[in-house]
């Protein structure tokens, strides 16, 4: 198995630490808030307020389960439009109360279903991209496992983006890539390598800013190893972003996403 596919397998492992466990380990006083105020409460996205070493924060994570029962509840970590709208509601709340937002991203992608289309999955994601780009409070995104396309990006228009060592982020799954572009699902490994979807690849083209390492025995067997590193990074970054004048913060965020593109000019 190629190095990339090994990482993909780790990122997808059912035992892998999920957002609720990360929140538990990283923050105090977490109170979960529910619902998008329009339609429903999507349990694929959890969010609320908490404190990080005395600082109030809003935290939002895409939730996966460890067994079938849990996964049926959280739809295997594939949010519906109401999930993205709940996330946006909590982010706007954070903006009002001047709290930084921390998002934990771990999804195979936004859910593809009839209801999701009826309720405007495309509109929900689009709205988040635009609103996050202009949100007047700091946003930190941490990719903890899978980062599947628009469904991940909808929580990751952030000032700084970190990724765990075995995280990934791509425009679609390597399986999808192989079957759509080559009509040959057996070429998954080749697709995964070509797509440059690992933390090491992504830091090179500035899609992410920091790699957070995991214990060799597996993150689920030594979570503290990783959460200590995340805490250290938050301790360092939160004050810097929080003290930055809003205009400068938004300008930097705009420029961050503005720079993406590989082309030449005649």
């Amino acid at each position, binding site marked *: 198995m190629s190095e990339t596919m090994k990482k993909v397998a780790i990122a997808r492992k059912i035992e892998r630490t999920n957002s609720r466990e990360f929140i538990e380990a990283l923050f105090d006083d977490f109170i979960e808030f529910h619902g998008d105020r329009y339609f429903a409460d999507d349990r694929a996205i959890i969010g609320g307020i908490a404190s990080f070493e005395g600082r109030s924060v809003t935290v939002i994570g895409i939730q996966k389960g460890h067994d079938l029962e849990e996964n049926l509840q959280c739809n295997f970590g594939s949010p519906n439009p109401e999930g993205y709208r709940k996330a946006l509601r909590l982010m706007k709340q954070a903006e009002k109360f001047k709290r930084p937002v921390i998002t934990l991203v771990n999804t195979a992608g*936004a*859910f*593809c*279903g*009839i209801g*999701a*289309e*009826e*309720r*405007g*999955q*495309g*509109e929900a*994601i*689009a*709205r988040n*991209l*635009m*609103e996050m*780009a*202009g949100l007047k409070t700091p946003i930190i995104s941490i990719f903890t496992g899978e980062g599947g*396309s*628009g469904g991940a*990006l*909808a929580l990751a*228009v952030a000032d700084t983006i970190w990724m765990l060592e075995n995280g990934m*982020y*791509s*425009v*679609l799954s390597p399986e999808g*890539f192989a079957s*759509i*572009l080559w009509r040959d699902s057996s070429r998954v490994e080749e697709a995964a390598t*070509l*797509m*440059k*979807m690992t933390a090491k690849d*992504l830091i090179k*083209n500035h*899609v992410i800013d920091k790699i957070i390492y995991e214990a060799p025995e597996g993150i689920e067997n030594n979570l503290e190893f990783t959460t200590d590193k995340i805490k250290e990074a938050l301790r360092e970054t939160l004050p810097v972003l929080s003290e930055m004048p809003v205009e400068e913060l938004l300008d930097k*965020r*705009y420029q961050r*996403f*503005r720079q*993406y*593109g*590989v*082309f*030449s*000019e*005649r």
Partner: protein
Amino acid sequence: MNLFGKKTYFSIEGTPEKKRNDKRKKKQEPSIPDGMWIKCNTCKNIIYKKEVSEYKLCPSCGAHFRMSPAERIAVTCDEGTFTELFADLKTENPMDYPEYENIISKAQEKSGIEEAVVTGCGEIGGYKTVLAIMDSHFMMGSMGSVVGEKVTRAVEYATENKLPVIIFTTSGGARMQEGIISLMQMAKTSAAIGRHNEAGLLYVTVLTDPTTGGVTASFAMLGDIILSEPKALIGFAGQRVIQGTIHQKLPEGFQRAEFQLEHGFVDKIVNRLDMKETLETILKLHQK
């Protein structure tokens, strides 16, 4: 033929009447197969090609055929007012995708344009506006770096010059061959629209067949006003993907413009024959 590489064809001064007409006739060819007769995919009738007007509607059932940007400009902008902008961007191969350069050249040959969107400035009923017109004939209108950059520059140009933006969308989504960089175009374009929005300026999208994936999930769905052509396919996920996920038959008319209108995601479905007038009225009502 490289129509959009040469700005002079659409300069404000305009080209002599005869020359422009010649160009327009040639431009009708890409989306309709060669030969005197074509088959309408909607009503299945065989149509005499010369009966299809510049609006590219089926003379038998009124189905809206897919258009090229040149054809769209011809029926949308006041004659001779369109000036192309940002035409000089050239696609590169960020992911070292095999044969990408070849794929691009073939798409250019087939479509007669350089990339999947044409951007510029024009007038509709005398009202000046920035326009971006996507082309499904070019790699299914997929959004890579160049499409994202052109749309972003067009929107930024509009913000700077306090102009409205009208985007005609048609796209299969992100350009897979450019990997994660194509995904980032969704954030880039949406951020630019956010600034245009903050400046209190008008943004209208016209969703045309088909508008899906990453374009739906970014600038297509962010219009202050969202229009659509009749029966256009509009959605986030592709129908095969949804069927593969839920293993059930999709309802009749699923993800069509009428479905999106019913579910509240489109402001108005506008027949192509009325599109120019509708846009003109919208622009007029937003004059300060």
